[in-house]
C-alpha cells in the first residue's frame, strides 16, 4: 500500500494529467476547455504556493548559518534574512502599488543592484572573449568575425568605418543565424518531446525523488 501511494499514485496523476493536456490540444471542445481553465488556474495557484517550499528552505538554511558561530559568513546570512523579511513585511503592510515604500525599494535598491550586477559581466565577458577568441582555427575565426561585425554594427563607429558593416551584420542575422537557430529549435523540440514522454509514461522517475533533503 505504501509503495502504491509513494510510486503509483504520482505516476497515475502524471499520466492522467499528461493524457488530458495532450488531448486538449487536439480537442478544444467546450467541456475540455472548461476543465482546462479550471486546471490551469489550479496549476497557477499550486505553482504560487510551491514557492513557499523555496522560501522555507532558504529561510532554514540562512537561519542555521546565521546561528552558526563558526561560519565566517554568518553576518552576511543575517543581512540576507533581514532584507528578505523586511522587504516582505513592507510589501504586506504598504502594498505594492506606485508610491509605496515597497515600490521605492524596488526602484532604488533592487533595480540598481540588478542592473549593476549584470553590467559587471561586460568586463568579464570581454576578458573571457580575449582569451577564448584567439584566432587558432577557422571556426574560431568565424565566431570572432561574426561577433566583431555584430558589435560594430550597433555603434556609430561601425558605420563610420564602413557603410557595409551594418549590412553584413543584418545579413548574418537574417541568414546564417536563422539557419543555425532553426536547427537548434528543432533539436530542442525533439529533446523536450522525448523528455515529456519519458516523464508522462513513467520511464523517467527521477523527478519524484529528493524529498526530505531540502
Amino acid at each position, binding site marked *: 500500500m505504501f509503495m502504491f501511494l509513494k510510486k503509483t499514485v504520482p505516476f497515475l496523476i502524471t499520466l492522467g*494529467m*499528461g493524457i488530458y*493536456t*495532450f488531448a486538449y*490540444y487536439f480537442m478544444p471542445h467546450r467541456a475540455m476547455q472548461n476543465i482546462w481553465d*479550471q486546471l490551469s488556474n*489550479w496549476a497557477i*495557484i*499550486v505553482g*504560487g*504556493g*510551491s*514557492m513557499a*517550499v523555496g522560501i*522555507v528552505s532558504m529561510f532554514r538554511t540562512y537561519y542555521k548559518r546565521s546561528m552558526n558561530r563558526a561560519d565566517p*559568513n554568518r553576518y552576511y546570512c543575517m*543581512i540576507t534574512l*533581514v*532584507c*528578505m*523579511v*523586511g*522587504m*516582505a513585511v513592507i*510589501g504586506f503592510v504598504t502594498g505594492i502599488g506606485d508610491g509605496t515604500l515597497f515600490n*521605492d*525599494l524596488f526602484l532604488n*535598491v*533592487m533595480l540598481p543592484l540588478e542592473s*549593476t550586477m549584470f*553590467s559587471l559581466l*561586460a568586463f568579464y565577458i570581454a576578458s573571457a572573449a580575449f582569451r577564448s577568441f584567439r584566432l587558432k582555427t577557422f571556426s574560431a575565426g*568565424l*565566431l570572432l*568575425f*561574426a*561577433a*566583431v561585425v*555584430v*558589435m560594430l554594427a550597433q555603434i556609430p563607429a561601425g558605420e563610420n568605418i564602413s557603410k557595409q558593416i551594418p549590412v553584413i551584420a543584418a545579413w*548574418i542575422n*537574417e*541568414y*546564417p543565424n*536563422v*539557419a*543555425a537557430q*532553426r*536547427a*537548434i529549435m*528543432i*533539436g530542442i*523540440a525533439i529533446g523536450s*518531446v522525448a523528455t*515529456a514522454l519519458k516523464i508522462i509514461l513513467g520511464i523517467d522517475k527521477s*523527478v*519524484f525523488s529528493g*524529498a*526530505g533533503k*531540502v
Partner: protein
Amino acid sequence: MSTNPWIWIGAILTLLVFSYLWKENPFYRLAEHVFVGISVGYLVCITWFNVLKPKLFNPLIIDHEYILIIPFIISILMLFRFSSKHGWISFWPLAFLIGFSGYAIPASIDANMLKQIQATVNVSFGNDFMSILNATIILVGTLSCLIYFYFSIPHQGVIGRVAKLGSMLLMISFGASFGFTVMARISLLIGRILFLLRDWLGVVH
C-alpha cells in the same frame, strides 16, 4: 549633486557592486546579500498580490468558491517535502504540475518543429544571385546543422563535411549571439555610469 536620499542609496549600492572589479571584498558581498534578500522578499509579495490573493484568497474567502480548497490543499501537500518520513506526499502536487508537460508535446512539435521545417522548405529562391545564395544558406544550413547534431552515425566522408559546414554556421550564430550579449551588457554599464554622473553627481546633463 543630488539631494534625493534614494539616489544616494542607489549610487552607494552601485559603487559597492563595482568594487568587485578591484577584487572580491566585504563591500561587494554586502551588496550581493542585500540583493538576494530584497529579491526574495520582492518575489514573496509579488506572488501573494498577483497570484495567491486574486486567484485563491479573494475567491475563496470573499466569493465563497469552495472548490478552490482543492488547489489550496494540493499546495499545502508540497510542504511535506521537508519531511524525511512523509516527503513522498509532496510528489502528488509535483505530479499534478509535471502532468501539464503533456500539452508541451503537440505544442512543441507544432511550433518548434513543423513550423520551422515548413519555413525552411518553403524558402523562396527568387531570380537574382543573392536570393538564390540566401535561400541555399537557409535550406542547406539548417540541414547541415541538424546533421552536426546527429550523433548516431560517425561524422566521416560526406556526412563529416556537411557536419563541418553545420558547425561553421553554428559558430557564426554563436558569434552573433555573443556580440548582442556584450552590447546589451555594455548598454547596462553605460546606464549605470550615466546614473552616477548625471543623476547622482550631476556632472553630465
